[in-house]
């Protein structure tokens, strides 16, 4: 931080991000010092998505995940408790786990052989009695464990900061959205598992290109996705003119850019004009039998939500994960100009195999490293990043002006939320605002509580969203 302030003379962070005018210096996407600050100020504080309990169903099961640049291990210990540990040996730093997933009794370090139980305790030290002669207390040298972990309806989240608010408070009005994203399609809580493995690949752009734009940049879709919008990759094939999104029954709604600026979360969400869920509309014309399953599940879910207004189906949860019912998109910072993209795909745990296969094929066509929609996105993020590092290029700020000053609230129908026209840059400005707050904050006390918001978005409003980015 010190070197940044010196090298920038009198330019404080705030001078790089002018939210009133919607002008943002490219420095925050390309500057090495700022990037290093983010790892500390954002990624050791925020609640981050780790994985799903269904990835580790049995004692000893583990899966390697990531928080910021650093690897962590999600593991179920022998007493069935879940833990998230930093994947580094307390002796001299070696990774104690070099597999993506598996089952183990202990994590034995390949370097000098220190061995850790699945509950993190250091249990084995070679030559312990003879060489340490009682000088070291093994109980002080367990694997570093996150400060807080939350199992939120099966999804696992963690933070390194013991001062962070509870995960549910952190989500605020979006807690309902995240909860429902991990329901099976009949509306049962914790009803999904993730396809294995998780997709992982690196793209040459700063993590904020995808992280701040996804589910908040509706303006890009018409141009960026012009080709895929007419390529009929949806489950319905070219029926009805083809679309990359499944067919849905009509249900009166208005789309908005919806966000909680105080928390940084938001998505393309809709406010419904009536309660309940739309009836199921057949859409899997290219995959026999799948509609039968989803139709039956939807009927159960409609029954469950009869009379209730539904709030947003998707949300970008600050800082770097987009949660949707059938896909989870995570953008890990890897270096200032490289992002490690991860995709996890939830699927109804009890779905028959042909449904799982059909859903997997659709998701692979749609997103991920070779999915057609995300190939479009990557093209833009990668080249925009490359064209922003230049000495001259950095003199020109990015433009986030769209809709600035035109946000509004609708406490009756969308309590706690800030709304804007469905094509606006409101969500991106929210994330930039939260970024500034995190980067300037000395601790969580400076950034929470914020203007308190109700944990559930109330009875009167509601929303769904469209899969877009």
């Amino acid at each position, binding site marked *: 931080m010190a070197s940044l302030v010196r090298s920038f003379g009198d330019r404080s962070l705030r001078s790089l991000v002018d939210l009133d005018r919607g002008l943002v210096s490219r420095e925050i996407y390309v500057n090495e010092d700022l990037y290093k600050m983010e790892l500390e100020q954002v990624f050791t504080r925020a609640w981050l998505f780790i994985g799903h309990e269904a990835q580790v169903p049995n004692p000893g099961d583990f899966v390697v995940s990531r928080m910021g640049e650093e690897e962590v291990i999600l593991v179920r210990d022998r007493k069935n408790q879940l833990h998230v540990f930093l994947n580094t040996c307390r002796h001299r730093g070696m990774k104690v786990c070099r597999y993506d997933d598996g089952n*183990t*009794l*202990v994590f*034995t370090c390949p370097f000098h*052989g220190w*061995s850790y139980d699945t509950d993190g305790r250091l*249990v*084995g030290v*070679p*030559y312990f*009695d*003879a060489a340490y002669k009682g000088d070291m207390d093994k109980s002080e040298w367990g694997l570093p464990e996150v400060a807080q972990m939350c199992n939120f309806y099966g999804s696992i989240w963690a933070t390194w900061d013991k001062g962070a608010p509870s995960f549910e408070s952190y989500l605020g009005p979006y807690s309902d959205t995240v909860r429902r994203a991990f329901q099976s399609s009949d509306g049962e809580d914790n009803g999904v598992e993730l396809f294995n493995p998780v997709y992982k690949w690196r793209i040459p752009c700063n993590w904020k290109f995808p992280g701040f734009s996804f589910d908040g940049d509706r303006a890009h879709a018409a141009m960026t996705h012009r080709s895929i919008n007419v390529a009929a990759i949806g489950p319905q094939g070219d029926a009805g003119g083809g679309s990359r999104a499944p067919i849905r029954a009509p249900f009166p709604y208005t789309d908005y850019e919806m966000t909680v600026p105080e928390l940084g979360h938001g998505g393309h969400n809709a406010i419904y004009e009536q309660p309940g869920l739309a009836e199921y509309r057949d859409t899997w014309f290219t995959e026999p039998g799948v509609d039968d399953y989803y139709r039956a599940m939807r009927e159960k879910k409609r029954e469950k939500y009869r009379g209730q207004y539904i709030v947003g189906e998707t949300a970008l949860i600050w800082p770097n994960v987009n949660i949707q019912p059938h896909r989870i998109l995570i953008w890990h910072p890897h270096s200032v100009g490289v992002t490690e993209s991860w995709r996890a795909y939830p699927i109804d745990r009890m779905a028959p195999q042909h449904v799982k296969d059909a859903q997997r094929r659709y998701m692979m066509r749609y997103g991920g490293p070779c999915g057609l929609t995300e190939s479009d996105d990557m093209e833009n993020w990668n080249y925009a990043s490359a064209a922003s590092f230049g000495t001259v290029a950095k003199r020109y700020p990015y433009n986030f002006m769209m809709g600035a000053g035109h946000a509004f609230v609708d406490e009756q129908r969308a309590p706690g939320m800030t709304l804007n026209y469905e094509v606006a840059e409101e969500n991106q400005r929210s994330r930039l605002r939260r970024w500034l707050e995190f980067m300037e904050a000395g601790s969580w006390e400076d950034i929470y509580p914020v203007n308190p918001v109700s944990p559930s978005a109330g009875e009167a409003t509601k929303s769904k969203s469209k899969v877009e980015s």
Partner: protein
Amino acid sequence: MTDQEPIAKKYSEAVGGAAITGAVNDAVLIRDLPEGTHVRIRSGDIVEITANPRDGGWLFVKVLESSDSSRIGTDDMAFCVDVIDVVRHVDR
């Protein structure tokens, strides 16, 4: 003369001075030893493998025979280079 020297010395005589590094090509390879196998460890104890993490480094063991009677019946872990001999094989 430190307390572990007699053991190291004894072992060195047997294997040619490579006890600590484990650099011996007739070492007992523990990775695939099944549960129930009895092995002799460097202290002279005979222990039974109760669980094998199959990492090639460690075994979970129960002490069967020891000159220190308080150790008999206790659970412990045995490091690879401390496993000197297999005294009872079991079938996989």
